[in-house]
């Protein structure tokens, strides 16, 4: 594990340096103006200059992310279990989950705001709408592709549906679920930012990063805009990091994505 941690830091850093070098080079070679692509140092400076706005935006967005993400996970897991529990639920409900997923948020937004009011409530609903489907799709697939032989085993010992779900399908679906979770984690800040621009409150301490991005963008504060984008990424990384840790904790002992020797 010790060696791993060094490796897991060294490689991204090396690649980061490489990317940054290319970045500078591209700006230099193609004479890309600052309003198209600022240099990393300009972004850092802008980030420092705007750190107050960014921080309060980040806090607001993080709150929306946390609530939206947790809601997604809970609803998605419950829904997946329902979908995997019976053929009729799968056939009957899944198409409507898809419709919900595929309906453009701009159409749903007025209804959402009507029911949940302007602000955090609606933002988290929008975050939820964007995040929940990858978890549902993955978890459902995981729950439905349980090893036949193990299902036989549970049958022999007269496991009821509840037990079969809890002790067999769910552990078996873990790798799928965690992958869905990782996708959802990466989508969370996007969802929250987008929700912010659709249903947020656009002022003061209640303004999330979505608001900040729109304002920086229209005011052409491009380096600050990138700083905001990276702040959003940073929030995303916290989520992805937590999911990765969970993955490691839950699967390392038995799953083939972690091999022993």
């Amino acid at each position, binding site marked *: 594990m010790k060696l791993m941690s060094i490796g897991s830091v060294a490689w991204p850093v090396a690649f980061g340096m490489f990317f940054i070098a290319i970045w500078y080079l591209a700006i230099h070679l193609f004479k890309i103006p600052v309003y198209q692509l600022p240099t990393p140092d300009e972004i850092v400076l802008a980030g420092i200059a705007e750190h107050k706005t960014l921080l309060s935006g980040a806090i607001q967005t993080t709150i929306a992310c946390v609530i939206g993400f947790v809601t997604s996970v809970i609803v998605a897991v419950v829904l997946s279990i329902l979908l995997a529990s019976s053929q009729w639920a799968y056939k009957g409900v899944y198409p409507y989950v898809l419709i919900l997923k595929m309906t453009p948020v701009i159409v749903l937004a007025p209804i959402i705001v009507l029911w949940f009011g302007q602000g955090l409530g609606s933002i988290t609903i929008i975050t939820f709408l964007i995040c929940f489907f990858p978890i549902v799709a993955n978890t459902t697939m995981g729950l439905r592709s349980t090893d036949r*032989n*193990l299902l*036989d*085993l*549970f*049958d*022999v*010992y*007269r*496991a009821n549906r509840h*037990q079969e779900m809890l*002790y*067999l399908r769910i*552990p*078996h679906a*873990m790798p799928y679920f965690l992958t869905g979770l990782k996708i959802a984690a990466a989508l969370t800040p996007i969802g929250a930012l987008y929700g912010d621009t659709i249903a947020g409150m656009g002022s003061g301490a209640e303004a999330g990063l979505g608001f900040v991005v729109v304002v920086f963008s229209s005011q052409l504060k491009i380096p600050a805009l990138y700083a905001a984008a990276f702040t959003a990424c940073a929030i995303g990384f916290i989520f992805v990091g937590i999911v990765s840790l969970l993955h490691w904790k839950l699967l390392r*002992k*038995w*799953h083939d994505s972690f091999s*022993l020797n």
Partner: protein
Amino acid sequence: MRQALKLIVDNQLRKDKSSLVSFEKVSKQYASGPQILDSIDLEIARGDFVALIGPSSCGKSTVLKLVANLITQSSGNITVGGGHASDSSEKIGYVFQDANLLPWATAKENIGLPLKLGHIPKEKRDKVAERLLSLVGLGQAADKFPRQLSGGMKMRVSIARALSTQPELLLLDEPFGALDEMTRDDLNEQLLKLRLIQKWTALFVTHSVAEAVFLSSRILVMSANPGKIFREITVDFPYPRTSITRTNPLFQKKILEVSQALHSVRGPE
């Protein structure tokens, strides 16, 4: 009052001698494949220890799965404990042909699984699992995950699991195939000892004629393509049998008899 009691006892006895598993002209075909089992008749009484022996792929595992109601017959009738196989309430223990362990559970947890499914509390489960672990010689491996176990160890965990619920009917699909002779003989004897206490009925598949003769009261020799019961051989050595039984010349003779039956199954090929 007394008469009533006598009636109950009689009924009890009758029930004890009654058939636990019965096949009536059972045939099986997977999807649109060929006929696998052809019109099998089979009767297993409570307390029987029946060995199923026959060439590879003749349908032995299929018979076991039918008894456990994991698959359904294409035609014919199967009853288990008097009722339809699908709604029988007899407790079954099943050792699958491959170990079939939960990869995310330790050996101990795997053994305790049937008890967990029967809502037995954890302490009780752990106690049973530990006793069974030492019975199959795996006291040291309680907390290992399946991928850390050798082939024979996995099979032994699987055997221990099947025994954990003190089942009424034990279905064993080559439970000792992956074990060395000594461990195998050992476990054979353990099993017979346990049977005295737990009194289950057993239907087991084996490729070892000696094992079949040592363990069972009846041996069913199957033929293949399609699977049929070719011959039934009764083994009447008294239980409990011990390692001394093996040295009995009659034992060797019985082995020869079964072997010959098995050889004549194939016919010209």
